[in-house]
């Protein structure tokens, strides 16, 4: 396939050179890690002291806000070169001295140090920022659980922020792995927050285990990196990789050992696990069993982008492999499409959002695969805001309607009292997600799709992404048209999604180990603000309070404003996000982008998607875009086109149009003429599609497939092993153990008690022994 050859060529022209890091980074960066830990400790203390107020939430918000403020400070301070803040020694092995070898590689160092470059700061900004906001939101959302559960929630929440910070800020791959697994743990704890609900426990377990599969890939990648480069610290890796980067520049991939080319593939496996890509995505939709703030923060905005972060962070290594980036790109694109098809057929709005998250993560990976790390990073940021917004809005709905999330049972929220801000948030989120023109989602998505067409050989990815964009618009607005607008109708949730029920029991005193109360929804806890909203038509939804509304409003504004991060130039840096990415290890300018910019700059707000690339700052002397003679000489010759036009220029309109079409279809099918909540015009169309909608609704039976292909055989193997262990291994041991007994039984009859028998035995024994001795030795 051409993508391979072209990518190899591309990478040859476009590998970045790292800058040597400054070793004395700002010490306050450590505070970003320390503050969430402080939060954990405080929440734990609250739990021990049996605090029954919202104290933990506010402590958390305080800690995280402080962390955010420090991060902003880091951002303001950040210079062009990465800086390293040393913490303390974690794992530090050295050897060889005694053997007289002095190779510098006879050591293994993984310290608790921070590597701060722009990419780090970018990620930390939205991680801490969103975490603060979502903590505020959760202070209200989780208020039903005030008590131990509340403390537990916020402790895990803080721990998550800590882990995520480690992941992002660590100066070596093991530190990243620490965060990587740490966020996995927090995800596990928070998905399983409603630990009495078997489905939640199941989902938490699934998330952890599937992540572990990816983690193994990452771990092997780390080992391989270490074995080859003799270090797992980023700065060393990048310095060590320099010869290969040079080789890749010249297109001489044969000089790059297979080991090195394998590293990014292994890392990618890790990334696929954490970022819920094919084939390991199945855990993410189930992870929605967790409380919604968790879904918003962990499973939409931050943790799942860790995979993207990993690829971006190790981008120089990914460029060294002929297969790694195409792999990432294709997996991302296929995941995007696949998840979108499932999302179209779901009825649970939170699940729809979950699949859309998978799909959007696919976009990001596709972006990385088509060589636009900037685009991917930008999409990460915009997605973080609007997806968090969408989830939080869903959460508000869920909170208000007793866990109801079925879009067939909710309708016309806009017209209900107190639901205005939620509706607004929903609208803003949906527009962003659908890629409505001039929203931030539109710009970031457009960048990815455009770049897919620009980069030679990746056009199929572009087409897939374009198609997915249409589907995304459709299913996004399907939710909007059915839930927010239309006739007013609502039904309270059943226990399937009843977070409230669990709220009542998070701090449980066990009054309901009896199954019947599950169905009745009768929880008489006085301080609970949802008074008995269970039965028949007497259910009264309660609108969200100030905390939720504030957060929704803030996020709405932010997600709209996020587009500015790209376009509004900040000094010489260009847009904030590109400027930051450019200053990091993910820095990479497609040589084809140069040629794309000027023509595309049609509209006002669209001043220059690749402005940054055009004006590469002079203090980035090693950027290959400037240096590589090859790129300078033939800047345009390999750039792809979109049906003959310049992709960035045309796609601006095309993807806008696709988005409109999607929204329109959703309007026709799900809003126009709809009189009830349960049915819409779309239902009439379904039979025409045969079994496909049903299959899609059942997620293409992937879970069942995995179950059949992986879990069942493994379980069978486990049972077989258990049987072997009991029968064969232990049986053999017992057999050996039984030999003496058996021998004893065999010769016991000689001890008959009869004098003659004994005498005969003696005589025979003497005879036999004489015979043996004489036969064997005397011949």
């Amino acid at each position, binding site marked *: 396939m051409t993508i391979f050859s072209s990518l190899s060529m591309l990478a040859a022209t476009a590998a970045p050179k790292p800058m040597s890091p400054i070793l004395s980074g700002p010490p306050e960066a450590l505070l970003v890690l320390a503050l969430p830990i402080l939060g954990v400790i405080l929440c734990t203390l609250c739990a021990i002291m049996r605090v029954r107020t919202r104290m933990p939430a506010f402590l958390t918000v305080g800690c995280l806000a402080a962390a955010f403020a420090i991060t902003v400070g880091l951002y303001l301070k950040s210079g062009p070169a990465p800086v390293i803040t040393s913490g303390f020694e974690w794992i530090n092995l050295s050897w060889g001295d005694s053997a007289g070898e002095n190779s510098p590689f006879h050591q293994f160092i993984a310290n608790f140090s921070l590597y701060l470059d722009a990419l780090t700061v970018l990620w930390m900004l939205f991680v801490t920022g969103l975490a603060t906001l979502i903590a505020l939101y959760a202070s209200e959302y989780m208020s039903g659980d005030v008590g131990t559960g509340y403390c537990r929630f916020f402790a895990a929440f803080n721990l998550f922020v800590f882990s995520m910070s480690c992941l992002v800020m660590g100066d070596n791959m093991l530190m990243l792995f620490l965060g990587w697994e740490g966020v996995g743990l927090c995800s596990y704890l928070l998905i399983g927050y409603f630990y009495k609900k078997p489905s939640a426990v199941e989902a938490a377990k699934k998330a952890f285990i599937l992540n572990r599969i990816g983690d193994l890939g990452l771990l092997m990648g780390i080992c391989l990196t270490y074995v080859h480069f003799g270090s797992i610290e980023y700065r060393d890796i990048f310095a060590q990789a320099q010869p290969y980067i040079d080789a890749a520049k010249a297109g001489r991939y044969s000089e790059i050992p297979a080991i090195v080319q394998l590293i990014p593939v292994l890392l990618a496996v890790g990334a696929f696990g954490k970022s819920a890509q094919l084939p390991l995505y199945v855990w993410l939709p189930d992870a929605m069993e967790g409380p919604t703030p968790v879904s918003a923060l962990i499973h939409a905005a931050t943790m799942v982008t860790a995979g993207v972060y990993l690829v971006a962070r190790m981008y120089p290594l990914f460029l060294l492999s002929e297969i790694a980036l195409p792999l990432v790109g294709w997996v991302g694109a296929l995941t995007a499409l696949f998840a979108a098809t499932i999302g179209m057929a779901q009825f649970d709005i939170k699940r729809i959002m979950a699949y859309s998250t998978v799909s959007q993560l696919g976009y990001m990976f596709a972006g990385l695969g088509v060589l636009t790390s900037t685009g991917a990073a930008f999409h990460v940021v915009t997605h973080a805001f609007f997806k968090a917004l969408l989830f939080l809005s869903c959460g508000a709905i869920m909170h208000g309607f007793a866990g109801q999330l079925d879009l067939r049972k909710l309708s016309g929220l806009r017209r209900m009292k107190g639901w205005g801000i939620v509706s607004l948030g929903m609208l803003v989120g949906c527009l962003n997600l659908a890629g409505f023109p001039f929203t931030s989602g539109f710009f970031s998505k457009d960048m990815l799709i455009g770049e897919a067409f620009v980069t030679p050989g990746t056009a199929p990815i572009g087409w897939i992404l374009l198609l997915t964009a249409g589907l995304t618009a459709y299913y996004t607005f399907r939710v909007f048209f059915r839930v927010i607008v239309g006739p007013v109708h609502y039904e309270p949730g059943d226990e399937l999604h009843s977070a409230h029920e669990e709220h009542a029991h998070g701090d449980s005193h066990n009054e309901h180990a009896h199954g019947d109360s599950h169905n009745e929804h009768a929880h008489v806890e006085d301080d609970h603000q949802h008074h008995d909203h269970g039965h028949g038509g007497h259910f009264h939804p309660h609108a969200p309070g100030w905390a939720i509304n504030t957060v929704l409003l803030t996020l709405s504004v932010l997600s709209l404003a996020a587009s500015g991060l790209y376009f509004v130039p900040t000094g010489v840096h260009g847009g904030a996000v590109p400027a930051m990415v450019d200053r990091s290890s993910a820095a990479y300018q497609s040589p084809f982008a140069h040629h794309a910019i000027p023509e595309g700059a049609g509209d006002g707000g669209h001043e220059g998607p690749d402005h940054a690339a055009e004006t590469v700052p002079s203090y980035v002397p090693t950027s290959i875009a400037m240096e590589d003679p090859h790129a300078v000489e033939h800047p345009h010759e390999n750039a792809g086109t979109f049906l003959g036009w310049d992709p960035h220029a045309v796609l601006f309109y095309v993807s806008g149009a696709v988005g409109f079409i999607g929204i329109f279809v959703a309007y026709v099918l799900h809003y126009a003429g709809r009189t009830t909540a349960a049915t819409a015009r779309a239902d009439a169309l379904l039979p025409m599609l045969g079994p496909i909608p049903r299959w899609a609704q059942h997620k293409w039976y992937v879970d069942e497939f995995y179950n059949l292909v992986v879990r069942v055989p493994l379980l069978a193997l486990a049972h077989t092993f258990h049987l072997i262990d009991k029968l064969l291994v232990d049986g053999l041991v017992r057999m050996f153990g039984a030999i*003496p*007994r058996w*021998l*004893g*039984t065999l*010769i*016991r009859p*000689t*001890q008959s*008690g009869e*004098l003659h*028998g*004994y*005498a005969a*035995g*003696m005589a*025979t*024994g*003497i005879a*036999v*022994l*004489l015979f*043996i*001795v*004489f036969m*064997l*030795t*005397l011949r």
Partner: protein
Amino acid sequence: MIGRLAYLWPEIALFATTCIVMVLGLSRSLPMRKASAWVCGIGLLAALGLSITTTPSGSTVIASGGQAMLPGMAPFAKCLICLVALFLLPLLAGTVDRAEEHRIATGAGVFNPLRSNRAEFYSFFLFSITGLLLVADADNLIWLFLALELTSLPTYIMVAISSERHRAQEAGVKYFFLGALGAAVFLYGFALLYGATGTTNLNAIHESFLSRGISTMAIAGLILSLLGLCFKIAAVPMHFYTADVYQGASAGVAAMLAFVPKTAGFLAMLLILATVGWSSGPGAASLPEPLRLLLWVIAALTMTVGNVLAVLQSSAKRTLAYSSIAHSGYMLVGVIAGPGDGSFTRNGISAVLFYLLGYGVMNLGAFAVLASVEKPASDGGEPRELDSFDDLRGLCRTHPVSGWTMVLCSLSLLGMPPLLGFFGKLPLFTSAIGAGEIPLVLVLGINSAIAAFYYLRLMAMPLLEEPSFRATAPVDNPFVSRRFAGLLSAGGVIVLAVFANLLMKESTAAGRYVARPETASAGAKTEVSVAQDGR
């Protein structure tokens, strides 16, 4: 010859004591009768002292015409015998005449010398010990034969009279008849040995072997002698009687049977094998091949048969009997290994001598426990000594002294470090490895593991089980001395282990093998047999 009498003072002392005891036991006065045991003890003490002081060692023996191949063996063996006999004595207290004495004490009868066995019992015991001492002293096949017979004959009777029960008589008859068969076998072996060499003097036989080689007839004689002696040490194929006899005899007598004939057998075996020496054979460092093969097979079979049969038993006494067979197998490993280079770690003979002491002490403890506690007979008859494993249940709680003695002794018998048994087994290990008998060492190791199974039961029953029903709960035997014997042996198991070095040094000297006594007697430099080198 008369000069040798000077070295027989322990035997003479014992004989004198025997005469006194024989008379004392028949006295009409109870204190006098009771004193017979004490007199016995005094005699044994005297013998022990005389053994230590008068028995010459080294070159003096040779000068006086005793056997010269193992010059250090007799003194050590005699001390060891007297010591263990001293331990045995309190255990044997009250074995006979208990009902009779009870009848007299309650006034139901008067003392009747014809019905009293006490005098014979103690004097037979002393006779047997005397015989054993004489075995250690032997330098002549005739002497050896007589000493062996003197050792065994009294034990036949002791078994038969050790209990009123039929079992004792059955044990006696089996022991006697099979013993006679065994004696005939080694006697025939002695005859062939005489025929082959023309002399019955061990030194002369040795010289004959050195000068004229070992003829086939001599080999046949040696083999038959060894096989006959296997009866004494309860080794395959002469082991059949062991369990029945030990079980039928009272526990004290069984303990004696496990020590006295075994020691006699091993000492005799060592003396006879010393004539051929451990320097022939294919590797020039072992017994002649037929003998090595014979002993190898016997050792391996003995260990295995003893252990696998012991595993099956439900009677603790029978188990101990079979374990006694197995221990003979272990010791045979040392016999096969031979003197090595004379150092303790390589000298199988020292190892055997040391093990005999260790085995004597720890085995005695186990039997002492069986003897010191009794359970009431179900039919209301005389209380019986403990026999089955079930009888031992919870002994540590009902009878702490006996229980813990059993625990310690069975652990020591198992070879659990750091108890005496372990340090007995270790030199066997090292000497056999030193002699290159590694397969045999593995057999020994595996057998130790098999043995662990029943010793563990022997340990667990008193320590860990609930005491059995109150109705048949074991009661203390009136003879405190038996418990004392157990205690002695339990203490010995620990104390001797801690201070084992002295004993080891002594047994090293005892196991010294002089391959060419004629040069030694000439006062020339002693030539130690060729040591096996580390290949």
